[in-house]
């Protein structure tokens, strides 16, 4: 049963989120003036810094008063207020349909919360579902008035049978050349590996946040007996006889998997957040993500 828009973003959560804003660690040029103080030094009234003139700079920004005093060409830099391109990529592969609540549902709640923060701060918010089809391609949303539209769009996201993480990311990158902040919400359960997908994003030179969503069933599997595990995506199967050594080995493998993803991200300047589907969204947003620097 699809989740309804009000459920995605309860009013009390909205009030908590209004005080937050998205943070980018890179300097981007916004296309339109936004309400945020950009890290890009540009044409505004708020002084930021000085730097030496290099040929090709706009002569209009030379501080002539300083030139008169120092006989040196020095540019006066101002902080530019700009909007932010904020993309949320939701992995809608069938594996995301597991858990209680499902990982996809959890991802939608996260996306709604993050999108709301962006819309409130007049950022350009794009929410995309990583599927083969183009039906879930999101319009660019901006402004508080688009919140409802965003929630509607999110509520309609369904698991995609053909979802492949790297393919989806690749298509996203081809369509969107612009820079900005990309939040990828995925369980990284891709037989081909998650690395190609992240490499595409890295090449795009966007500020990437990876939210790795895992369900409680994956972290601590409640399985016993002789089982035939069937992969919901490719119908691949693995026969296991659950035993204490196997469970222990699985947990070791999972820990290695998450640690590997974290290391991969940190080496490439991406932020990695591991989220359990049992963790309340508001707690995740206000504490966890704030500590990790995605919001402030």
């Amino acid at each position: 049963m699809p989740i309804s828009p009000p459920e995605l973003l309860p009013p009390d959560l909205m009030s908590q989120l209004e005080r937050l804003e998205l943070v980018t660690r890179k300097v981007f040029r916004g296309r339109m003036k936004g309400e945020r103080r950009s890290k890009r030094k540009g044409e505004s009234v708020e002084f930021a810094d000085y730097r030496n003139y290099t040929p090709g700079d706009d002569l209009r920004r030379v501080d002539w008063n300083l030139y008169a005093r120092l006989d040196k060409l020095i540019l006066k830099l101002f902080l530019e207020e700009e909007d932010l391109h904020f993309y949320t990529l939701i992995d809608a592969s069938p594996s995301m349909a597991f858990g209680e609540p499902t990982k996809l549902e959890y991802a939608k709640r996260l996306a709604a919360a993050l999108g709301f923060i962006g819309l409130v701060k007049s950022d350009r918010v794009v929410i995309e579902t990583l599927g083969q089809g183009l039906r879930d391609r999101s319009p660019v949303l901006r402004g508080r008035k688009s919140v409802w539209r965003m929630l509607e769009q999110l509520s309609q996201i369904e698991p995609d049978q053909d979802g492949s993480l790297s393919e989806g990311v690749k298509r996203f990158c081809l369509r969107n050349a612009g820079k900005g902040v990309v939040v990828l919400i995925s369980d990284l359960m891709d037989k081909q590996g998650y690395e190609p997908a992240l490499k595409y994003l890295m090449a795009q030179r966007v500020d990437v946040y990876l939210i790795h969503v895992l369900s409680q069933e994956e972290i601590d599997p409640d399985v016993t007996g002789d089982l035939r595990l069937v992969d919901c995506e490719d119908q691949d199967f693995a026969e296991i006889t659950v035993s204490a050594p196997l469970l222990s080995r699985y947990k070791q493998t999972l820990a290695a998997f998450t640690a590997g993803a974290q290391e991969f991200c940190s080496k490439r300047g991406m932020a990695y957040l591991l989220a359990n589907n049992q963790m309340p969204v508001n707690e995740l947003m206000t504490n966890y993500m704030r500590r990790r620097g995605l919001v402030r």
Partner: protein
Amino acid sequence: MLDGLFRNTLSPLQWSLMLAIPPAILALYFLKLKRMPIEVPSTYLWRKSIEDLRVNSFWQRLRQSILLLLQLLLVALAIFALLRPGWEGTELGGERIIFLVDNSASMGTEDVADAKDRLASAKKKVAGLIDQLDSSMSAMIIAFADTPHVVQQFTGSQGVLRERLESIELTSQPTNLLEALKLAGGLANPGQMTLQDSGVEVEVIEPVTTSLYIFSDGRFEDVEGFDLGGLDPSYVPLGSTDTANLAVTAFSTRRNEVRPEEREAFVQVTNFTEADQDVVVEVQLDGQFLDAKQASLEAGKSASLSFPLADAPPGRLTATIDAESLTAASDRLKIDNEAYAGLNRQEQGKVLLVTQGNKVLEAALSTERAGRIADLTVITPAGLDTEEYKRDAQSGEYALIIYDVCAPAEMPRSHTLFIGSRPPLAGWQGKPEVDAERFPQVIDWNRAHPLLAYVELSDLWIYESQLVDPPQGGTALIDSSNGPLMAIAPRDSYEDVVLGFPIIVYRDGSAMGNTRWFRRRSFPTFWLNTLSYLVGQLAGDAANQAEPGEPIEFRPVTNVPEVVVRSPSGAKTTLTRSGDTTFQFQDTAEPGVYEVLERGQVSKRFAVNLFDRQESDVRLRASQQEAGPGIDSIRIGYTDVTAEAGGAPARKELWQLLLALALVVLMAEWYVCNRRVYI
């Protein structure tokens, strides 16, 4: 060695089928392992996990499946149980084996851990040895108590031996190993015989060595005068050296010394324990409570208790040790906790004295104690010719007739005692009277005979006496330097006693003492003995006792040709007699009071009791050595037969334990399967 550890129970075909089970389980496990399908987000992590564990995938899979391991363990235990592993206490050797199983009363002691009583334990051990018989062996079973009984002749059939072994039942009899050994020795080598060839004894067949296993608690004296010959004995002790028991070791009735018209019962209880005990004994008459008394018994000692019976009517008397006393003493043998006595009508025996006049004899027969036993009638020799005497003498009216210097024309139907005369029977007619010896000197007398108990005859002055030459079967009681002066001989069911010398003789019309015996204390004692033995035996209770299995002889009160004997359990046996003999009853296996019915009326009772201190002292013979309470050997002839080490020659089987373990494994499997427990 493996032969000793295992016993094959299956045929090769059955074994091959059995051994095919574990591979079949393995095959089924791998081929038909039913796995529950479950959909997961991704098998990605699981696959990686399995790969790490698949280094030795075959064994890894086995290790992970606790159910499979449990199943294999279950089958392995079952197969192992079929091999019947065990330890053998004793190697059963030889081709011929005799099992001597003690089934005497003491074998009913309930002090063995592995069975109900000692006999059951013995049977279990014998069964264990029977299981070890192989095709070249044959075995035989003899049960023994007072008398041995061949339970099964030599056979190689284990089934027959086992079946016959089960038929051995506990008896109430004492133990007599000698008889059993004689029987075993005779049966062990039945073909052995000697031929008199030119005066030389030749053994025709070489004796075959026969293994002899004696299963007993050793409650018997060492066997003397037996040569084991070809028997190779082993003694298997049964029981414990500290088993406690309380027993009634004697029970009888007699007249009260002070009030002769009353009777009293005497009970002797013995404490066969290591501690002092307080014992309460209860006496019942025909199931009705009469009296109870308490006695304090030191360890190993006896105590006597007397119970006044007043004018109790005839019936069955029972003396029982109180249940609480038995519990307190941890009594382990039941049979001797109760004793029986038959209380008969109290009648004096009639005694006829035929004499010309013998004051000293009349005085000796008229003492107070003699009066309790005998009702004396005195007649003169002239009375022998009267019809009344003839009728009474032939009807058995008198228990005893004493002929003082006279003799009847025909022997009466009663015991007789002749003084200075001889019975009118050919056997007694020795030297004529003229050959009377003057001043015979008494040189010996039979002190063991009841007639001469406590009778001192040394230095006895006798003026003149006939020599008494008893007929065949008779016994001389007093010997002089010239020949016997007194003898006793049986006649039909009676006994005739002849005293060679008169006590009083008449010379010239006046009485003179022929001996000075009547001036000595032994004189009344002798006559009291005579009355007790020849008269009291009929009326008193002493003769109405027998041990289990011992035949008992009795004379009916009235002159009837047949009587019925009713056993304690109610079984009736009809006894007939020819002529004037006594009745003899053989079937006294059951302890209790037997009743004799004459024309449908109970005329007398006799009791069968196990008054045997050897049987009642149920403590297993302990070693006298310093090593401690070890189990001693038994001595047969000049051979010491050492007790088997540990006392258990029987094979100790493990298969029951293995099957129990298999059951535990089965339960564990069920638990693992249902509760999903993982180790």
